[in-house]
């Protein structure tokens, strides 16, 4: 099994520890992933801004970089969703089809492809889960509250297997955090308010460690947590599952 790690552009530059944790976690689970040095970005920021045409060269570059792999794993449901769904704009060559079907979110890869249901480890903290919309509604990693009241999902199950962990139950389990890519800047006022409300829900319900599968939502929420100087740590789920921090 030839696996590549795709480290999203902002994770590469600002959250290298998330890339490192992803790599090490995969290794612990018996997968040696490569990091192709030519990788840059999936092109989502441009496409979400209405500039899909300008993103096409980035899509092609992504395909050139990753089409030789059986799986391309990324610690970000949002980028994976973008590759799977919006690379339909390219001519559907075998290489393009390969990267679209091989793209996997890290947590999805661990549970679906590797079939792992439990992670050995201890994390004695009260952990609040931020379900990212693209992971949950786009990739169906957890049930949507619009469709069903069942509040389960891949990440919740994996985290739940850690010793000593306590998962918080939120007032609004799967409300969007308000990041939304360029939305966080073009609609800054609403974006900030949504993030503040999201953080407040975690605060109210006793979260001391805020986590999720998508670093982009967490970057936005972390920005709010730190501005408000709250005693809450924000970690990508890979960091917790890898046991880098306990």
């Amino acid at each position, binding site marked *: 099994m030839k696996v590549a790690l795709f480290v999203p552009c902002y994770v*590469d*530059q600002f959250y290298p520890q998330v890339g490192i944790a992803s790599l090490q976690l995969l290794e612990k689970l018996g997968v040696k992933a490569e990091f192709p040095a030519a990788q840059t970005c999936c092109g989502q920021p441009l496409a979400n801004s209405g500039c899909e045409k300008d993103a096409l060269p980035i899509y092609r570059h992504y395909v050139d970089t990753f089409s030789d792999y059986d799986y391309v794993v990324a610690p970000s449901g949002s980028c994976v969703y973008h590759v799977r769904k919006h690379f339909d704009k390219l001519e559907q060559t075998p290489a393009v089809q390969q990267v679209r079907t091989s793209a996997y979110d890290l947590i999805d890869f661990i549970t679906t492809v590797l079939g792992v249901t439990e992670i050995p480890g201890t994390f004695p903290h009260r952990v609040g889960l931020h379900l990212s919309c693209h992971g949950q509604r786009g990739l169906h990693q957890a049930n*949507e509250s*619009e469709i069903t009241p069942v509040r389960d999902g891949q990440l919740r199950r994996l985290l739940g297997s850690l010793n000593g962990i306590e998962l918080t139950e939120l007032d609004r389990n799967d409300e*969007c955090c*308000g990041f939304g890519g360029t939305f966080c800047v073009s609609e800054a*006022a609403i974006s900030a308010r949504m993030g503040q409300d999201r953080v407040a829900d975690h605060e109210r319900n006793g979260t001391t460690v805020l986590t999720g599968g998508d670093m982009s939502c967490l970057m936005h929420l972390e920005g709010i947590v730190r501005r408000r100087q709250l005693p809450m740590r924000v970690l990508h789920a890979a960091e917790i599952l890898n046991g880098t921090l306990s």
Partner: protein
Amino acid sequence: MNHATRAAKFVGDADRTTWHDETLWFVRAKRDKAVYAVPEFQDLRELASQIKDHTLSKLDTYLEQFEEQAKRNGVHIHWAADAAEHNAIILDIIRQHNATRVVKSKSMLTEECHLNPHLLSNGIEVVDTDLGERIIQLRDEAPSHLVLPAIHLKKEDVGETFFKHLGTAKGEVDPQVLTEAARQHLRARFLAAEVAISGVNFAVAETGGVVVCTNEGNADLGVNLAHVHIAAMGIEKLIPRLSDLAVFTRLLARSATGQPVTTYTSHYTKPAAGKEMHIVIVDNGRTKQLGRPDFRASLKCIRCGACMNTCPVYRRSGGHSYDFTVPGPIGAILSPNIDMKKHSSLPFASTLCGSCSDVCPVKIDIHTQLYKWRQVLGEANEIPASKKWSMKLMGRLLTSPKAFGVGGKLARHGIKYLPYSLTHARHFNVWAVARELPTPPKQSFREWYQQQANTTA
């Protein structure tokens, strides 16, 4: 003014925003409870979606069938290509009866066509009879929600409005007292009305009848008291058979308010003895939308408002921030069809979280259409030039691993070494208005990875 500017104004009142958000979330939660209780709800959604797809694919046939059946029932049928024709037809019918007093039961189509100002300027008194509609009519405002038009107002606002217009005591906020005042005020209008205008929730091709769903019973009261009933409907309101109706009535109220069914589901098929019934069938841009394959499904909308209640952006920005008759996610895909320039910011007033699509009772792919509208607007140069320019630059940067590495390093070092007051200056870094920037790490992931490779080699 774009959506972001209007939204920033609304969210500036933090307490009101909290109240607005919580009120609508309460409705969404009520909807969930009602929906979870129906095990076949997802099958109903699928069925409704298919019925609407089918109807839209043969819309011409069903419209003709509807017209023929309605005429056979003794109903007058009128066709209006646009808002102006719709308004002219209705004014003409009213004038033919030498009428001056009209009551109306909520119709978003007449709002869309701006019928009220047209009638008023022609000397016709037109009174909206739904409580929420009447409140905003007195305040000279537009509805801020499809189903709850005055949801942006608190009881104190209503008390103030009724004090000014209906003579209630100053500072009166008791809902019972205010409702009673409205009831007495409206009763006089109902009794005096010569013509009643209503909207249409569903038009049944097989029977030629129209169905209106209300919770206040005001459509019935208006129609049964007045001599003439005018029903205004968009061409997309059709369903093929009466037996299809149950699918939609089960979905509509549950999705809208969490009720099993609306209090009144009124069927109007033919005029009562000695009375007249007219149906105005309106296009006003709908065939244009029907001709756009990417956006055709938006015509399946049954106007339940569930996408608004669930939308985290709508709940915090209020309906008026959309500046369109139909606000929220569905409005943001309907409005650019009517005026792309004016409404160019609306498809961007979303995080694309997808909750709107999941909650939609007829399975409209709302967030996918929002994404597609963004591309149409980008191609038509209806997005800010600065955005277009920076995205082009980013496109170049992100196709070159080398340029990307250098650019990233510059950004990291910028945040690290420039003074906080500069990196977090709110007038050119809006991110920093409410959020801290990430702490820049010593090295990027790719630098770390390279270092590892070098050490092991």
